[in-house]
Protein backbone atom coordinates (compact mmCIF):
# COMPACT_ATOMS: atom_id res chain seq x y z
CA UNK A 1 0.00 0.00 0.00
CA UNK A 2 2.98 2.30 -0.12
CA UNK A 3 2.37 3.78 -3.60
CA UNK A 4 -1.11 5.20 -2.82
CA UNK A 5 0.18 6.57 0.46
CA UNK A 6 3.01 8.33 -1.39
CA UNK A 7 0.59 9.67 -4.01
CA UNK A 8 -1.59 11.10 -1.25
CA UNK A 9 1.39 13.04 0.09
CA UNK A 10 1.87 14.57 -3.35
CA UNK A 11 -1.82 15.21 -4.03
CA UNK A 12 -2.69 16.61 -0.64
CA UNK A 13 0.19 19.11 -0.74
CA UNK A 14 -1.32 20.46 -3.95
CA UNK A 15 -4.98 20.26 -3.01
CA UNK A 16 -4.53 22.09 0.27
CA UNK A 17 -2.21 24.77 -1.07
CA UNK A 18 -4.47 25.21 -4.12
CA UNK A 19 -7.40 25.70 -1.74
CA UNK A 20 -5.54 28.37 0.22
CA UNK A 21 -4.67 30.22 -2.99
CA UNK A 22 -8.26 30.04 -4.20
CA UNK A 23 -9.28 32.03 -1.13
CA UNK A 24 -7.65 35.07 -2.77
CA UNK A 25 -9.99 35.05 -5.75
CA UNK A 26 -11.78 38.42 -5.76
CA UNK A 27 -9.66 39.80 -2.92
CA UNK A 28 -6.21 40.32 -4.45
CA UNK A 29 -4.16 43.53 -4.22
CA UNK A 30 -4.42 44.11 -7.97
CA UNK A 31 -6.60 42.53 -10.62
CA UNK A 32 -3.60 40.95 -12.33
CA UNK A 33 -2.82 39.07 -9.10
CA UNK A 34 -6.38 37.80 -8.76
CA UNK A 35 -5.79 36.24 -12.14
CA UNK A 36 -2.27 34.96 -11.42
CA UNK A 37 -3.10 33.41 -8.05
CA UNK A 38 -6.22 31.79 -9.50
CA UNK A 39 -4.03 30.38 -12.26
CA UNK A 40 -1.59 28.83 -9.81
CA UNK A 41 -4.47 27.53 -7.73
CA UNK A 42 -6.04 25.94 -10.81
CA UNK A 43 -2.76 24.27 -11.73
CA UNK A 44 -2.34 22.84 -8.24
CA UNK A 45 -5.92 21.60 -7.92
CA UNK A 46 -5.63 20.10 -11.40
CA UNK A 47 -2.45 18.26 -10.38
CA UNK A 48 -4.12 17.13 -7.15
CA UNK A 49 -7.09 15.80 -9.11
CA UNK A 50 -4.87 13.65 -11.34
CA UNK A 51 -2.83 12.40 -8.39
CA UNK A 52 -5.91 11.58 -6.31
CA UNK A 53 -7.47 9.66 -9.18
CA UNK A 54 -4.23 7.74 -9.54
CA UNK A 55 -4.07 7.11 -5.78
CA UNK A 56 -7.61 5.75 -5.87
CA UNK A 57 -6.77 3.49 -8.79
CA UNK A 58 -3.59 2.20 -7.14
CA UNK A 59 -5.42 1.64 -3.88
CA UNK A 60 -7.90 -0.61 -5.68
CA UNK A 61 -10.82 -0.02 -3.34
CA UNK A 62 -12.89 1.84 -5.88
CA UNK A 63 -12.44 5.30 -4.36
CA UNK A 64 -12.51 8.21 -6.82
CA UNK A 65 -10.46 11.35 -6.57
CA UNK A 66 -13.49 13.23 -5.28
CA UNK A 67 -14.13 10.62 -2.59
CA UNK A 68 -10.55 10.97 -1.44
CA UNK A 69 -10.78 14.76 -1.43
CA UNK A 70 -14.17 15.13 0.20
CA UNK A 71 -14.63 12.12 2.46
CA UNK A 72 -11.37 11.83 4.38
CA UNK A 73 -10.93 13.28 7.85
CA UNK A 74 -8.16 15.72 8.69
CA UNK A 75 -6.02 13.01 10.31
CA UNK A 76 -6.16 11.06 7.02
CA UNK A 77 -4.66 13.94 5.03
CA UNK A 78 -0.98 13.64 4.21
CA UNK A 79 0.05 17.16 3.21
CA UNK A 80 2.99 18.97 4.75
CA UNK A 81 1.95 21.51 7.39
CA UNK A 82 3.23 24.50 5.41
CA UNK A 83 0.42 24.01 2.86
CA UNK A 84 -2.42 24.37 5.36
CA UNK A 85 -1.30 27.52 7.18
CA UNK A 86 -3.84 30.33 6.67
CA UNK A 87 -3.18 32.50 3.64
CA UNK A 88 -1.98 35.46 5.72
CA UNK A 89 -1.18 38.68 3.87
CA UNK A 90 0.00 38.81 0.26
CA UNK A 91 3.62 38.66 1.45
CA UNK A 92 2.96 35.44 3.34
CA UNK A 93 1.16 33.86 0.40
CA UNK A 94 3.98 34.78 -1.98
CA UNK A 95 6.74 33.69 0.39
CA UNK A 96 5.11 30.29 0.88
CA UNK A 97 4.51 29.89 -2.84
CA UNK A 98 8.14 30.68 -3.55
CA UNK A 99 9.58 28.27 -0.95
CA UNK A 100 7.22 25.47 -1.98
CA UNK A 101 7.57 25.99 -5.74
CA UNK A 102 11.38 25.91 -5.66
CA UNK A 103 11.09 22.62 -3.81
CA UNK A 104 8.40 21.47 -6.23
CA UNK A 105 10.62 21.97 -9.28
CA UNK A 106 13.47 19.94 -7.79
CA UNK A 107 11.13 17.16 -6.67
CA UNK A 108 9.17 17.01 -9.93
CA UNK A 109 12.34 16.95 -12.04
CA UNK A 110 13.14 13.67 -10.36
CA UNK A 111 9.58 12.33 -10.23
CA UNK A 112 9.22 12.93 -13.95
CA UNK A 113 11.91 10.22 -14.27
CA UNK A 114 9.96 7.82 -12.01
CA UNK A 115 9.62 4.22 -13.17
CA UNK A 116 5.93 4.64 -12.39
CA UNK A 117 4.77 5.77 -15.83
CA UNK A 118 1.52 7.49 -14.81
CA UNK A 119 3.26 9.38 -12.02
CA UNK A 120 6.11 10.39 -14.34
CA UNK A 121 3.58 11.77 -16.81
CA UNK A 122 1.75 13.83 -14.21
CA UNK A 123 5.07 15.06 -12.80
CA UNK A 124 6.29 16.18 -16.23
CA UNK A 125 3.14 18.23 -16.76
CA UNK A 126 3.26 19.63 -13.22
CA UNK A 127 6.92 20.55 -13.64
CA UNK A 128 6.16 22.98 -16.45
CA UNK A 129 3.43 24.60 -14.39
CA UNK A 130 5.57 24.76 -11.26
CA UNK A 131 8.37 26.54 -13.11
CA UNK A 132 5.90 29.31 -13.81
CA UNK A 133 4.77 29.38 -10.15
CA UNK A 134 8.39 29.70 -9.01
CA UNK A 135 9.12 32.45 -11.51
CA UNK A 136 6.00 34.39 -10.62
CA UNK A 137 6.60 34.18 -6.87
CA UNK A 138 10.33 34.92 -7.19
CA UNK A 139 9.47 38.09 -9.15
CA UNK A 140 7.29 39.20 -6.28
CA UNK A 141 9.93 38.28 -3.68
CA UNK A 142 12.24 40.70 -5.50
CA UNK A 143 9.60 43.44 -5.69
CA UNK A 144 8.54 43.09 -2.07
CA UNK A 145 12.06 42.62 -0.70
CA UNK A 146 13.41 45.59 -2.61
CA UNK A 147 10.23 47.71 -2.68
CA UNK A 148 9.36 49.76 0.41
CA UNK A 149 10.47 49.40 4.04
CA UNK A 150 7.05 48.00 4.85
CA UNK A 151 7.05 45.41 2.09
CA UNK A 152 10.57 44.38 3.05
CA UNK A 153 9.55 43.91 6.68
CA UNK A 154 6.38 41.99 5.77
CA UNK A 155 8.03 39.54 3.42
CA UNK A 156 10.99 39.00 5.75
CA UNK A 157 8.56 38.28 8.61
CA UNK A 158 6.76 35.80 6.38
CA UNK A 159 9.99 33.99 5.43
CA UNK A 160 11.03 33.86 9.10
CA UNK A 161 7.63 32.54 10.13
CA UNK A 162 7.50 29.93 7.39
CA UNK A 163 11.04 28.67 7.82
CA UNK A 164 10.26 26.18 10.57
CA UNK A 165 7.76 24.48 8.26
CA UNK A 166 10.27 23.90 5.45
CA UNK A 167 12.13 20.98 7.04
CA UNK A 168 9.19 18.65 6.54
CA UNK A 169 9.43 18.99 2.76
CA UNK A 170 12.78 17.14 2.79
CA UNK A 171 11.88 14.41 5.28
CA UNK A 172 12.36 10.83 4.23
CA UNK A 173 10.87 7.81 5.95
CA UNK A 174 11.01 4.06 5.34
CA UNK A 175 8.13 4.24 2.90
CA UNK A 176 9.71 6.79 0.57
CA UNK A 177 13.19 5.30 0.99
CA UNK A 178 11.86 1.96 -0.24
CA UNK A 179 10.04 3.60 -3.16
CA UNK A 180 13.11 5.67 -4.02
CA UNK A 181 15.19 2.49 -3.93
CA UNK A 182 12.84 1.01 -6.54
CA UNK A 183 13.12 4.09 -8.74
CA UNK A 184 9.51 5.11 -8.10
CA UNK A 185 10.06 8.06 -5.75
CA UNK A 186 12.94 10.48 -5.22
CA UNK A 187 15.25 11.11 -2.29
CA UNK A 188 13.93 14.37 -0.83
CA UNK A 189 16.94 14.78 1.44
CA UNK A 190 19.16 15.22 -1.61
CA UNK A 191 17.08 18.21 -2.68
CA UNK A 192 17.90 20.23 0.40
CA UNK A 193 21.17 21.76 -0.79
CA UNK A 194 20.03 22.74 -4.27
CA UNK A 195 16.89 24.20 -2.67
CA UNK A 196 18.97 26.25 -0.21
CA UNK A 197 21.14 27.48 -3.05
CA UNK A 198 18.23 28.68 -5.18
CA UNK A 199 16.24 30.15 -2.29
CA UNK A 200 19.41 31.84 -1.01
CA UNK A 201 20.15 33.31 -4.43
CA UNK A 202 16.71 34.94 -4.75
CA UNK A 203 16.58 36.13 -1.14
CA UNK A 204 20.02 37.73 -1.51
CA UNK A 205 18.95 39.48 -4.71
CA UNK A 206 15.90 40.79 -2.83
CA UNK A 207 18.14 41.92 0.08
CA UNK A 208 16.32 39.49 2.37
CA UNK A 209 17.97 37.30 5.01
CA UNK A 210 17.86 33.54 4.88
CA UNK A 211 16.82 32.38 8.36
CA UNK A 212 19.02 29.98 10.32
CA UNK A 213 17.71 26.42 10.50
CA UNK A 214 16.22 25.91 13.96
CA UNK A 215 13.44 23.72 15.25
CA UNK A 216 11.35 22.29 12.43
CA UNK A 217 7.64 21.54 12.79
CA UNK A 218 6.54 18.23 11.36
CA UNK A 219 3.78 15.64 11.42
CA UNK A 220 1.62 16.21 8.33
CA UNK A 221 2.76 13.03 6.58
CA UNK A 222 1.40 11.02 9.52
CA UNK A 223 -1.81 13.05 9.75
CA UNK A 224 -0.69 15.13 12.71
CA UNK A 225 -1.75 18.54 11.46
CA UNK A 226 -2.20 22.07 12.73
CA UNK A 227 -5.65 23.07 13.95
CA UNK A 228 -6.12 25.01 10.72
CA UNK A 229 -6.67 21.95 8.54
CA UNK A 230 -9.92 20.89 10.22
CA UNK A 231 -11.48 24.27 9.49
CA UNK A 232 -10.25 24.27 5.93
CA UNK A 233 -11.76 20.82 5.35
CA UNK A 234 -15.00 21.70 7.12
CA UNK A 235 -15.48 24.40 4.51
CA UNK A 236 -14.21 22.39 1.56
CA UNK A 237 -16.26 19.26 2.32
CA UNK A 238 -19.54 20.72 3.63
CA UNK A 239 -21.62 20.55 0.44
CA UNK A 240 -20.33 17.18 -0.70
CA UNK A 241 -21.00 15.65 2.72
CA UNK A 242 -24.44 17.26 3.08
CA UNK A 243 -25.74 15.36 0.06
CA UNK A 244 -24.45 11.80 0.42
CA UNK A 245 -24.53 9.80 -2.78
CA UNK A 246 -25.18 12.87 -4.94
CA UNK A 247 -23.60 13.46 -8.33
CA UNK A 248 -22.40 16.95 -9.17
Amino acid at each position, binding site marked *: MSVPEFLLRLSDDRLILGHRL*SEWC*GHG*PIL*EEDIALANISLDL*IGQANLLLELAGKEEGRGRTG*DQLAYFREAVEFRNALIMELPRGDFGFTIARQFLVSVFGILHLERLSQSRHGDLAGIAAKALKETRYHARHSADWILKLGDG*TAESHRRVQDAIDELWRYTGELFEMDDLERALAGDGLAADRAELREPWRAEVGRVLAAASLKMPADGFMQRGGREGRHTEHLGHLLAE*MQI*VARSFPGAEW
Partner: protein
Amino acid sequence: MSSDAPSPDDPKRTAEFEARIARGDVIEPKDWMPERYRRQLIRMMSQHAHSEIVGMLPEGNWITRAPSLRRKMSLLAKVQDEAGHGLYIYCGTETLGVDRHELLADFLNGKAKYSSIFNYPTLTWADVGVIGWFVDGAAIVNQTMLAKASYGPYARAMVRICREENFHKRQGYESVATLARGTPGQRAMVQDAVNRWWWPSLMMFGPNDKDSPNSAELIRWGVKKKSNDELRQRFVNLTVPQAQAVNLTLPDPDLRYNEATGNWDFGQIDWDEFWAVVKGDGPCNRERMAARRKAHEEGAWVRAAAAAFAAKKRAAAAGAAA
Protein backbone atom coordinates in the same frame (compact mmCIF):
# COMPACT_ATOMS: atom_id res chain seq x y z
CA MET B 1 -16.06 62.66 -14.76
CA SER B 2 -17.42 65.52 -12.76
CA SER B 3 -20.51 66.26 -14.83
CA ASP B 4 -22.72 64.56 -17.34
CA ALA B 5 -23.73 67.86 -18.94
CA PRO B 6 -23.02 67.88 -22.66
CA SER B 7 -20.18 70.16 -23.66
CA PRO B 8 -20.77 72.56 -26.54
CA ASP B 9 -19.76 70.39 -29.47
CA ASP B 10 -19.34 71.82 -32.94
CA PRO B 11 -22.77 71.21 -34.59
CA LYS B 12 -21.21 70.63 -38.02
CA ARG B 13 -18.85 67.93 -36.72
CA THR B 14 -21.65 66.42 -34.68
CA ALA B 15 -23.78 66.18 -37.81
CA GLU B 16 -20.91 64.49 -39.67
CA PHE B 17 -20.45 62.11 -36.76
CA GLU B 18 -24.11 61.20 -36.75
CA ALA B 19 -23.99 60.62 -40.49
CA ARG B 20 -21.13 58.19 -39.95
CA ILE B 21 -23.15 56.34 -37.30
CA ALA B 22 -26.12 56.23 -39.67
CA ARG B 23 -23.89 54.68 -42.37
CA GLY B 24 -22.85 52.01 -39.85
CA ASP B 25 -19.24 53.20 -39.55
CA VAL B 26 -17.26 51.98 -36.57
CA ILE B 27 -15.86 54.78 -34.41
CA GLU B 28 -12.24 54.31 -33.34
CA PRO B 29 -10.36 56.03 -30.47
CA LYS B 30 -8.61 58.57 -32.70
CA ASP B 31 -11.80 59.64 -34.45
CA TRP B 32 -13.59 62.81 -33.47
CA MET B 33 -16.65 62.16 -31.28
CA PRO B 34 -19.09 64.35 -29.39
CA GLU B 35 -18.11 64.82 -25.78
CA ARG B 36 -21.48 63.43 -24.71
CA TYR B 37 -20.85 60.22 -26.71
CA ARG B 38 -17.47 59.83 -25.06
CA ARG B 39 -18.96 60.31 -21.60
CA GLN B 40 -21.81 57.90 -22.17
CA LEU B 41 -19.35 55.27 -23.31
CA ILE B 42 -17.09 55.82 -20.32
CA ARG B 43 -20.11 55.48 -18.06
CA MET B 44 -21.34 52.29 -19.73
CA MET B 45 -17.98 50.62 -20.19
CA SER B 46 -16.70 51.37 -16.71
CA GLN B 47 -19.99 50.16 -15.18
CA HIS B 48 -19.55 47.01 -17.17
CA ALA B 49 -15.96 46.57 -15.95
CA HIS B 50 -16.94 47.23 -12.32
CA SER B 51 -19.75 44.68 -12.69
CA GLU B 52 -17.26 42.03 -13.76
CA ILE B 53 -15.16 42.74 -10.68
CA VAL B 54 -18.03 42.83 -8.18
CA GLY B 55 -19.44 39.79 -9.95
CA MET B 56 -16.44 37.82 -8.76
CA LEU B 57 -17.69 38.05 -5.17
CA PRO B 58 -21.03 36.20 -5.12
CA GLU B 59 -19.69 33.27 -7.11
CA GLY B 60 -16.26 33.40 -5.50
CA ASN B 61 -18.15 32.82 -2.26
CA TRP B 62 -18.55 29.16 -3.31
CA ILE B 63 -15.10 28.33 -4.71
CA THR B 64 -13.89 26.91 -1.41
CA ARG B 65 -17.08 24.84 -0.99
CA ALA B 66 -17.59 23.47 -4.50
CA PRO B 67 -18.71 19.84 -4.07
CA SER B 68 -16.38 18.20 -6.63
CA LEU B 69 -12.91 18.98 -7.89
CA ARG B 70 -14.18 19.36 -11.44
CA ARG B 71 -16.79 21.92 -10.36
CA LYS B 72 -14.24 23.69 -8.18
CA MET B 73 -11.89 24.11 -11.14
CA SER B 74 -14.68 25.27 -13.48
CA LEU B 75 -15.86 27.85 -10.98
CA LEU B 76 -12.37 29.11 -10.23
CA ALA B 77 -11.69 29.42 -13.95
CA LYS B 78 -14.98 31.24 -14.45
CA VAL B 79 -14.31 33.78 -11.73
CA GLN B 80 -10.81 34.21 -13.12
CA ASP B 81 -12.35 34.91 -16.55
CA GLU B 82 -14.44 37.64 -14.95
CA ALA B 83 -11.30 39.30 -13.62
CA GLY B 84 -9.91 39.07 -17.14
CA HIS B 85 -13.05 40.63 -18.60
CA GLY B 86 -12.84 43.45 -16.09
CA LEU B 87 -9.23 44.09 -17.00
CA TYR B 88 -10.00 43.96 -20.70
CA ILE B 89 -12.92 46.41 -20.47
CA TYR B 90 -10.92 48.78 -18.25
CA CYS B 91 -8.28 48.83 -21.01
CA GLY B 92 -11.00 49.48 -23.59
CA THR B 93 -12.30 52.37 -21.48
CA GLU B 94 -8.80 53.84 -21.27
CA THR B 95 -8.95 54.39 -25.05
CA LEU B 96 -11.46 57.14 -24.24
CA GLY B 97 -8.85 59.12 -22.34
CA VAL B 98 -9.43 58.07 -18.72
CA ASP B 99 -7.20 55.81 -16.72
CA ARG B 100 -8.03 52.76 -14.72
CA HIS B 101 -7.08 54.40 -11.42
CA GLU B 102 -9.62 57.18 -11.93
CA LEU B 103 -12.30 54.66 -12.80
CA LEU B 104 -11.42 52.52 -9.82
CA ALA B 105 -11.50 55.53 -7.49
CA ASP B 106 -15.00 56.47 -8.77
CA PHE B 107 -16.10 52.92 -8.12
CA LEU B 108 -14.62 52.62 -4.63
CA ASN B 109 -16.06 55.94 -3.49
CA GLY B 110 -19.49 54.82 -4.69
CA LYS B 111 -19.82 57.30 -7.57
CA ALA B 112 -19.82 54.73 -10.33
CA LYS B 113 -22.44 52.00 -10.46
CA TYR B 114 -22.30 48.29 -11.21
CA SER B 115 -24.92 45.72 -12.10
CA SER B 116 -27.48 45.35 -9.30
CA ILE B 117 -27.71 41.60 -9.70
CA PHE B 118 -24.49 41.18 -7.71
CA ASN B 119 -26.11 42.73 -4.65
CA TYR B 120 -28.04 39.52 -4.07
CA PRO B 121 -26.55 36.81 -1.85
CA THR B 122 -25.48 33.34 -3.01
CA LEU B 123 -27.07 31.07 -0.41
CA THR B 124 -26.50 27.57 -1.75
CA TRP B 125 -24.27 25.73 -4.19
CA ALA B 126 -27.16 25.72 -6.69
CA ASP B 127 -26.90 29.51 -6.92
CA VAL B 128 -23.63 29.09 -8.79
CA GLY B 129 -25.27 27.07 -11.57
CA VAL B 130 -28.32 29.31 -11.72
CA ILE B 131 -26.14 32.43 -11.97
CA GLY B 132 -24.30 30.86 -14.89
CA TRP B 133 -27.59 30.06 -16.58
CA PHE B 134 -29.59 33.25 -15.84
CA VAL B 135 -27.04 35.97 -15.21
CA ASP B 136 -24.55 34.95 -17.87
CA GLY B 137 -27.50 34.17 -20.13
CA ALA B 138 -28.87 37.69 -19.65
CA ALA B 139 -25.39 39.16 -20.10
CA ILE B 140 -25.06 37.32 -23.42
CA VAL B 141 -28.35 38.73 -24.72
CA ASN B 142 -27.14 42.21 -23.84
CA GLN B 143 -23.57 41.76 -25.04
CA THR B 144 -24.49 40.12 -28.32
CA MET B 145 -26.14 43.43 -29.10
CA LEU B 146 -23.19 45.44 -27.77
CA ALA B 147 -20.83 43.44 -29.98
CA LYS B 148 -22.30 45.55 -32.79
CA ALA B 149 -21.88 48.82 -30.89
CA SER B 150 -20.62 51.81 -32.85
CA TYR B 151 -17.49 52.19 -30.72
CA GLY B 152 -14.87 49.74 -32.03
CA PRO B 153 -12.95 48.91 -28.82
CA TYR B 154 -16.18 48.18 -26.94
CA ALA B 155 -17.63 46.08 -29.75
CA ARG B 156 -14.43 44.03 -30.03
CA ALA B 157 -14.27 43.50 -26.26
CA MET B 158 -17.84 42.23 -26.37
CA VAL B 159 -17.12 39.74 -29.15
CA ARG B 160 -14.35 38.19 -27.13
CA ILE B 161 -16.21 38.30 -23.82
CA CYS B 162 -19.39 36.84 -25.31
CA ARG B 163 -17.47 33.79 -26.45
CA GLU B 164 -16.41 33.08 -22.86
CA GLU B 165 -19.81 33.95 -21.40
CA ASN B 166 -21.42 31.42 -23.72
CA PHE B 167 -19.14 28.81 -22.28
CA HIS B 168 -20.01 29.89 -18.72
CA LYS B 169 -23.70 29.79 -19.49
CA ARG B 170 -23.51 26.28 -20.92
CA GLN B 171 -21.55 25.18 -17.88
CA GLY B 172 -24.07 26.78 -15.51
CA TYR B 173 -27.03 25.23 -17.28
CA GLU B 174 -25.35 21.84 -17.31
CA SER B 175 -24.79 22.14 -13.54
CA VAL B 176 -28.45 23.11 -13.07
CA ALA B 177 -29.57 20.15 -15.17
CA THR B 178 -27.41 17.81 -13.07
CA LEU B 179 -28.98 19.12 -9.86
CA ALA B 180 -32.48 19.01 -11.33
CA ARG B 181 -32.21 15.27 -12.05
CA GLY B 182 -30.31 14.59 -8.80
CA THR B 183 -31.45 13.66 -5.30
CA PRO B 184 -34.63 15.26 -3.84
CA GLY B 185 -32.35 17.52 -1.79
CA GLN B 186 -30.46 18.70 -4.85
CA ARG B 187 -33.70 19.29 -6.73
CA ALA B 188 -35.17 21.36 -3.92
CA MET B 189 -31.95 23.36 -3.71
CA VAL B 190 -31.92 24.22 -7.41
CA GLN B 191 -35.63 25.10 -7.57
CA ASP B 192 -35.13 27.45 -4.63
CA ALA B 193 -32.19 29.11 -6.37
CA VAL B 194 -34.28 29.55 -9.54
CA ASN B 195 -37.04 31.15 -7.46
CA ARG B 196 -34.63 33.64 -5.93
CA TRP B 197 -32.68 34.59 -9.08
CA TRP B 198 -35.42 34.82 -11.71
CA TRP B 199 -36.81 38.27 -10.99
CA PRO B 200 -33.46 39.93 -10.24
CA SER B 201 -32.23 38.51 -13.57
CA LEU B 202 -35.10 40.18 -15.42
CA MET B 203 -34.18 43.43 -13.69
CA MET B 204 -30.67 43.19 -15.15
CA PHE B 205 -31.95 44.72 -18.38
CA GLY B 206 -32.80 47.94 -16.58
CA PRO B 207 -35.98 49.99 -16.29
CA ASN B 208 -38.82 49.83 -18.78
CA ASP B 209 -38.07 51.83 -21.92
CA LYS B 210 -40.34 54.67 -20.83
CA ASP B 211 -38.26 55.08 -17.63
CA SER B 212 -34.81 54.69 -19.18
CA PRO B 213 -33.39 58.19 -19.77
CA ASN B 214 -30.18 57.09 -21.51
CA SER B 215 -31.64 54.57 -23.92
CA ALA B 216 -32.87 56.80 -26.74
CA GLU B 217 -29.56 58.60 -27.04
CA LEU B 218 -27.55 55.38 -26.89
CA ILE B 219 -29.71 53.87 -29.62
CA ARG B 220 -29.42 57.00 -31.78
CA TRP B 221 -25.63 56.80 -31.51
CA GLY B 222 -25.55 53.13 -32.31
CA VAL B 223 -24.13 52.10 -28.94
CA LYS B 224 -27.25 50.10 -28.23
CA LYS B 225 -29.26 48.51 -31.00
CA LYS B 226 -32.24 47.34 -28.97
CA SER B 227 -34.22 48.68 -26.04
CA ASN B 228 -34.22 47.28 -22.50
CA ASP B 229 -37.69 45.79 -22.94
CA GLU B 230 -36.83 44.14 -26.25
CA LEU B 231 -33.75 42.53 -24.72
CA ARG B 232 -35.65 41.41 -21.63
CA GLN B 233 -38.32 39.78 -23.79
CA ARG B 234 -35.66 38.00 -25.80
CA PHE B 235 -34.11 36.62 -22.61
CA VAL B 236 -37.48 35.39 -21.33
CA ASN B 237 -38.26 33.76 -24.69
CA LEU B 238 -34.92 31.94 -24.65
CA THR B 239 -35.04 30.87 -21.02
CA VAL B 240 -38.59 29.53 -20.58
CA PRO B 241 -38.04 26.48 -22.83
CA GLN B 242 -34.69 25.83 -21.11
CA ALA B 243 -36.45 25.71 -17.74
CA GLN B 244 -39.11 23.39 -19.14
CA ALA B 245 -36.44 21.08 -20.52
CA VAL B 246 -35.07 20.43 -17.03
CA ASN B 247 -38.48 20.42 -15.29
CA LEU B 248 -37.93 23.55 -13.25
CA THR B 249 -40.66 26.13 -12.78
CA LEU B 250 -40.13 29.87 -13.09
CA PRO B 251 -41.74 31.80 -10.23
CA ASP B 252 -44.26 33.79 -12.27
CA PRO B 253 -47.95 32.74 -12.34
CA ASP B 254 -48.54 35.14 -15.26
CA LEU B 255 -46.00 33.52 -17.54
CA ARG B 256 -47.75 32.27 -20.66
CA TYR B 257 -47.14 31.90 -24.36
CA ASN B 258 -48.76 34.52 -26.53
CA GLU B 259 -49.73 32.97 -29.87
CA ALA B 260 -50.28 36.37 -31.46
CA THR B 261 -46.86 37.83 -30.70
CA GLY B 262 -44.84 34.64 -30.38
CA ASN B 263 -43.53 35.90 -27.06
CA TRP B 264 -43.73 34.59 -23.54
CA ASP B 265 -45.74 37.19 -21.64
CA PHE B 266 -44.60 37.68 -18.08
CA GLY B 267 -45.84 39.35 -14.91
CA GLN B 268 -45.09 42.69 -13.32
CA ILE B 269 -41.51 43.35 -12.21
CA ASP B 270 -41.21 44.78 -8.71
CA TRP B 271 -39.66 48.11 -9.64
CA ASP B 272 -39.63 49.29 -6.04
CA GLU B 273 -37.22 46.48 -5.27
CA PHE B 274 -35.17 47.34 -8.36
CA TRP B 275 -34.77 50.99 -7.38
CA ALA B 276 -34.04 50.11 -3.76
CA VAL B 277 -31.16 47.89 -4.86
CA VAL B 278 -29.89 50.48 -7.34
CA LYS B 279 -29.91 53.10 -4.58
CA GLY B 280 -27.85 50.92 -2.25
CA ASP B 281 -30.44 49.06 -0.21
CA GLY B 282 -30.14 45.60 -1.75
CA PRO B 283 -29.31 42.66 0.50
CA CYS B 284 -25.55 42.83 -0.16
CA ASN B 285 -24.69 46.32 -1.47
CA ARG B 286 -22.74 47.22 1.65
CA GLU B 287 -20.97 43.86 1.85
CA ARG B 288 -19.89 44.00 -1.79
CA MET B 289 -18.48 47.50 -1.52
CA ALA B 290 -16.85 46.69 1.82
CA ALA B 291 -15.18 43.61 0.34
CA ARG B 292 -13.80 45.58 -2.62
CA ARG B 293 -12.57 48.42 -0.40
CA LYS B 294 -10.96 45.96 2.01
CA ALA B 295 -9.09 44.23 -0.83
CA HIS B 296 -8.00 47.61 -2.15
CA GLU B 297 -6.82 48.88 1.23
CA GLU B 298 -5.08 45.67 2.18
CA GLY B 299 -3.33 45.68 -1.17
CA ALA B 300 -2.06 49.26 -0.83
CA TRP B 301 1.34 48.22 0.53
CA VAL B 302 1.77 45.71 -2.30
CA ARG B 303 1.04 48.30 -4.97
CA ALA B 304 3.36 50.77 -3.23
CA ALA B 305 6.12 48.14 -3.21
CA ALA B 306 5.66 47.37 -6.90
CA ALA B 307 5.75 51.08 -7.76
CA ALA B 308 8.86 51.70 -5.62
CA PHE B 309 10.61 48.70 -7.15
CA ALA B 310 9.77 49.82 -10.69
CA ALA B 311 11.07 53.33 -9.90
CA LYS B 312 14.35 51.88 -8.60
CA LYS B 313 14.75 49.79 -11.74
CA ARG B 314 14.10 52.82 -13.96
CA ALA B 315 16.60 54.90 -11.99
CA ALA B 316 19.19 52.13 -12.24
CA ALA B 317 18.61 51.79 -15.98
CA ALA B 318 18.91 55.55 -16.44
CA GLY B 319 22.12 55.54 -14.35
CA ALA B 320 23.58 52.75 -16.46
CA ALA B 321 22.68 54.53 -19.68
CA ALA B 322 24.23 57.85 -18.51
